[in-house]
């Protein structure tokens, strides 16, 4: 029973992180119509940025701020590359651009940074030495804290989306950009904002991952992309809340499989579940809705 609770918490924690990244993917799909394939790779690049800053300054605070800023900056700077394609509804071409960016960022991480070796964050920020023990099982404080921070981030994000003027404008553009434009909402500004907002989420998740995983490698981004895209299709493309629910579900399944099955069967199992669902509901469990 104790082990079960431990696996469950780990799974939910993983699911919440998947959920935030999936929201980042969905946000851009909703506002700009493009799938930014590079999103998770750039997130991992922010982890690298945080690691470099931490090494240079030895300050966790500065490294954390730098990680978040790098997330916003990287995504905002890349926006002009996408805008011409978005304007002409050339979504496939934009996808190719984003795949290109993702390859470039992976090569940078695997050749230039830390000689291509995986990076490890100091044990102190993982708080892995302190764990809550119950019976034979234990759960790391770092995992618990990132779980709580992740939930807090989601809460703030949805408050922003549903309770503020900016959030309302963002949702209006996702529902009918033509009418939004007629009401005097600037579409390019909103797109730029959605890139930066996605970058903000990625930057924060980069910190949460540094704390909960303790390390990163150039392949990490591809793994996240794979899971999050699968979750996105499972829930229904562009469905923010549905994506979150499915992410927590998939994360929990992954956590359980990791705990109970020998060997690394997590991806195989998670994708089997997703495939089975999509066979019966091709448009996803929740469908496309806002």
């Amino acid at each position, binding site marked *: 029973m104790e082990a079960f609770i431990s696996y469950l918490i780990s799974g939910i924690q993983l699911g919440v992180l998947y959920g935030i990244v999936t929201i980042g993917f969905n946000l851009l799909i909703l506002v700009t119509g493009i799938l930014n394939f590079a999103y998770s790779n750039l997130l991992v690049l922010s982890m690298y940025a945080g690691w470099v800053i931490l090494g240079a300054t030895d300050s966790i605070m500065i490294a954390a701020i730098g990680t978040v800023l790098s997330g916003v900056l990287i995504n905002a700077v890349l926006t002009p590359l996408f805008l011409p394609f978005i304007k002409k509804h050339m979504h496939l071409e934009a996808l190719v651009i984003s795949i290109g960016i993702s390859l470039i960022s992976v090569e940078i991480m695997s050749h230039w940074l830390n000689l291509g070796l995986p990076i490890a964050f100091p044990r102190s920020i993982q708080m892995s030495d302190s764990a809550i023990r119950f019976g034979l099982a234990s759960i790391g404080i770092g995992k618990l804290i990132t779980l709580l921070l992740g939930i807090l981030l989601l809460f703030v994000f949805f408050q922003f989306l549903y309770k503020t*003027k900016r959030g309302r*404008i963002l949702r209006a553009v996702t529902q009918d950009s*033509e009418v939004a434009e*007629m*009401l*005097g909402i*600037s579409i390019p500004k909103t797109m730029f904002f959605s890139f930066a907002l996605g970058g903000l989420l990625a930057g924060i998740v980069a910190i949460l991952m540094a704390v909960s995983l303790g390390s990163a490698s150039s392949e990490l981004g591809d793994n996240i992309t794979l899971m999050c895209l699968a979750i996105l299709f499972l829930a229904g493309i562009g469905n923010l809340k549905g994506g979150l629910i499915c992410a927590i579900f998939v994360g929990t399944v992954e956590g359980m499989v990791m705990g109970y099955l020998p060997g690394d069967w997590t991806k195989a199992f998670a994708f089997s579940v997703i495939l089975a669902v999509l066979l019966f509901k091709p448009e996803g469990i929740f469908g496309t809705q806002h």
Partner: protein
Amino acid sequence: MERIENVLEVKNISAFYGPIRAIRDVCLEIHENEIVGLVGANGAGKSTLMKAILGIRKCSTGSVVFMGRDITGTSTPEIVSSGIAYVPEGGGVFPFMTILENLQLGAVHYKGDINERLAETFERFPLLKKRQQQQAGTLSGGQRQIVAIGRALMSRPKLIMFDEPSLGLAPKVVEELFRLILDLKEEGYTILLSEQNARKTLQHAGRAYVFRTGSVILHGASAELLDNPEVKQAYLGG
């Protein structure tokens, strides 16, 4: 000195819709506090003209002057905030947002007190107040038009442009809608009304412009147009 009384003055504008020239050399003026009708078949260029005025379609030639200021080539947010509101075809409400949120989005550029505007809108349309938390996508066609009109009024515009407001509505609802448009004129609003329902438009508008394949072929007082044999034959069913 009629020039100064013009709320809107469109001079010789042409605009393209993709490779097609959707409007050609269109001239139009709207005086303070009048209803001006745009009559013509679907695809005659009425919508494109409105989008060109709003700055959504770029004009290849000509100029648009609003309240004495040249707004040709100005950005849509700036044009909207200078006092032009638009009621899109079918209402164009945001279906997955509440009525309240739809109304708030009409005041994106409004500098004053939004709550005051909301109170005024709710007073005019008590139905919207009662249902303010309802999703706009669940409303009927007529109710959507009301939300769209309420949304347009939120910014206290000088000029309101209606794009096919009666399309797809029941005759009784159309009747109410035109009464509402007349009420708005009585209150001092200036209105540009695009409609395929030529008879209704000419009965309510003071003046009108008749469009055919992107050009204005006739314009003048509605009473005269109603008697014009060509208009009768082409748009009023003989």
